[in-house]
Structures are given as structure tokens and as C-alpha cells.
């Protein structure tokens, strides 16, 4: 089976991105020069799986197990794609 377009990559944080917890705002952040991304809701869990070893499908499977009933298969691949476009993932 061929992977659907946009799922045949292994998401990882882009080289200059720093991920950290912000105790002041109690939020998980992604940092780049001039930019802050606040990971809200389940975004932190999704990004946590982006370590370059898992493909998009693996990430979806993993999350589907952890969050049964959530629309993981439809929402996660475009979310990852958007983070890639914005320069957070590669």
C-alpha cells in the first residue's frame, strides 16, 4: 500500500527549535528566533512523538490507542503538515 500524500515522512523537530515547559504560563512551548508556539490541548502529546523515528502512521496509531474515539486519523496528519510548513517540524 502506498502512503497517502503527506504521511510518508518521519516528523522531527526542526534543528533550531527548542521545546520547553513554561512554568510561568504552565504551557508547553516551541521556540524559534522571533517565534513562540504554544502547544495547547493534545498538541503537546502529538509533538512529543515527533522524534524522527516514527512515521506519520505510527504517530497516528500510537495516539489512537492513547485517545480512543478521538478523530486522530483525520486531524493529526494535517496538523503535522501545518507544523512542517510553519518551520517547527521537518
Amino acid at each position, binding site marked *: 500500500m502506498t502512503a497517502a500524500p503527506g504521511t510518508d515522512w518521519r516528523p522531527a523537530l526542526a534543528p*533550531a527549535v527548542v521545546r*520547553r515547559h513554561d512554568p510561568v*504560563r504552565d504551557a508547553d512551548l516551541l521556540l524559534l528566533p522571533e517565534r513562540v508556539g504554544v502547544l495547547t490541548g493534545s498538541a503537546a502529546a502529538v509533538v512529543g512523538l515527533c522524534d524522527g523515528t516514527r512515521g506519520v502512521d505510527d504517530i497516528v496509531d500510537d495516539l489512537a490507542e492513547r485517545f480512543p474515539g478521538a478523530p486522530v486519523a483525520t486531524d493529526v496528519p494535517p496538523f503535522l503538515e501545518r507544523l512542517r510548513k510553519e518551520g517547527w517540524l521537518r
Partner: protein
Amino acid sequence: MTSATPSPARPWALLAELTHACPLHCGYCSNPLELTRRSRELTTEQWTDVMRQAGELGVVHTHLSGGEPLLRRDLERIVTAAEAAGIYTQLVTSGVGLDQARLDALASAGLRSVQLSVQHADPRASDRIGGHRSFAEKERAAQLVRAAGLPLGLNVVLHRENLDAVDDLIELGISWGADRIELANVQFYGWGLLNRAALLPTRAQIAGARDAVERWRDRLATGPELVWVVPDYFDGVAKPCMGGWGAVSLTVTPDGTVLPCPAAAALPDLDPPNIRDHPLHWIWDHSKAFTRYRGTDWMADPCRSCSRRDEDFGGCRCQAYALTGDAGRTDPACRLSPEHGVIRALADEGADATAPVRRRVPGRSEGAAARV
């Protein structure tokens, strides 16, 4: 103790002006006319403490700027302190003095990114505008930063002398491997205001440069990010001052003065607090300098009743003061300002090609500035 005012949102960013000393002498420098002497600068320990306090306050980004921050020999230790406070560091430099050894030391201290200024794409014009032979060093600095794998931003202040070279500047940024090219139209406070007659472009120049940026944006699907900082004199629209007064960012100047923006030192009624006297959280939450124009309560008409007041915050306080004598008025850049005619007239007039550029001379104030 009771207090009716809830504490304001925490700041995200700190502009750390480590020194006013600089080998360049740009005619639009954003440092104040009254430059701080090196002997009045904060010590390493004081900057270390500023970083610690800033991190605790919620700051996650710092621009290590100046002047030329590389002239601080303890820059590495300041970077270490920022890193220890969880703050993402960006060096804002002219490139002069950034050799391999220095970059290695900074990178191992935790430096995350570099923003390099360039004055023109043509080496001789760049050196002339900066008042110092520095283009070759900038080019080398860019190579070193790329080789170290750090993100590279290029910053260009645009004015009459380089607005026609925007295409070349973007090409230069691409060939130097920049991730981000910031094309910032000159702002007229401090030195820029002093040299406005020489710096002010024509409407045609602005239009041409804007078109060039649009063309490149269409072509560059994956290339560097292009940032166009609007020329508020020409757009009839006030710029959102720092994302709101005392809302997202703060500036600490070389002598420890803490301000909502680097230009605010020129405002008369702020009673600027100093980090030597007060903790940063008190300054952010309670000092007059930060509360004076925070939010929208201070506004008068037309801003008070305007639907855009939460988007542009009434524009720039420093510009309102510079052009109307009252920092609480609507920024004259806004076409709804009763004083907008002042800006219109200036923009229509354009630059005076014969006006001399008055340049900063280290350690001296405006009165002694050299005429070049």
C-alpha cells in the same frame, strides 16, 4: 494588602541592550541621542541577575543587542545566564568581531541564533551608510553562522539610500543563506528623527520596494522568510507599538534602565525605573513607565472610540510625543489623527538630498555628534 488591578499578562521577550558602544555609526541608530558611557554599564553579575529575573517573569526570548554586543567581553557569560533561565538567545550584531573563536565560544555557551545587520547589498554603499568598513566582515560572519548550523537572520533598515536596492538585498540574503530577511523601513525617533531630512524616501521608492517584496514572496515558496516592517509615514496607518505598551516585551538599557521600548527613554513623564533599584516584576507590574500607556484607558479621542484601538493600540507613543509634544495623543501616522497633516506633508516632500547625516560618536551626546 489588597489590590484591585489584576496583574498584567507576562512579557515574552527581553531586548537586552548590553552596550551603546559600536564600531558602526549608522545615521538611523535606534540608540538614544544620549549614549550611555561604558563605565555606567551593568556588570556581568547584574546582567546575570536580569536574565534570572526575566526568566522568572515569563520571558522566553532575548535579543542580545547594543550597540555592538560583541564588545562586551562577558557576552558568553550573559548567554550562559540566559540559557540557564530557559531563555532562547539571539545575538543582534553588525558582524564586526564575530570570528570563529568567538562564535564557537558563544555557541558552546548556548547561543541559539544570530541576526546580522547589513546596510546595503553593494559593499561600498554598505560601508558608507554604516560609516565603517565592515561589509567583508559581515559576509564572513554570515558564513561562520551558517557553518555553525545556527539560524541566520539578516536585518536591513530601509531608507532613501537603499530602498531601490531591495531586489539586490533579498538576493544577498539568499546567497548568504539567511533563514529570515527583515526589511525594516526606518523609524523616525532619536537619530532617525535627527536625520529625517536625509533618510526620508519618496513615495515612489516605497511603492517600488513593496512591489519587489511581493514578487519575491510569490517566487520564494521555500526560501527565507521575508518580513516587511511598514513605513508608517507613508501608509496612513499607525503601527501596533511593540504589540501593546508593556504587553509583550521589555527593554533593559546598558545602564539598567527598564523601558517598554528602546525609544521610550525620550518620553518626559515616565520616571524610568532601574534594575539596580527595583525587582523586574515590580517594574513590569507597577512602575509608572509600564502602566502609563498600558491597555486602552489612557486614550483620548479619536483612539478612545475607535474600533482599531485593540489592534494598533493608538500607534507609537514616542512618535506621538516627537511630533505633537504629547505622548498621550493619537500617533500622527494614523490618518484619523488631527495632526496627520504633519506626516503627510513630510512624506510628500521626500528627502532633502543635500541634508548632512549626523552620526553618533561613541561617548558623546548629540550636541557633539560629528557631521559627515
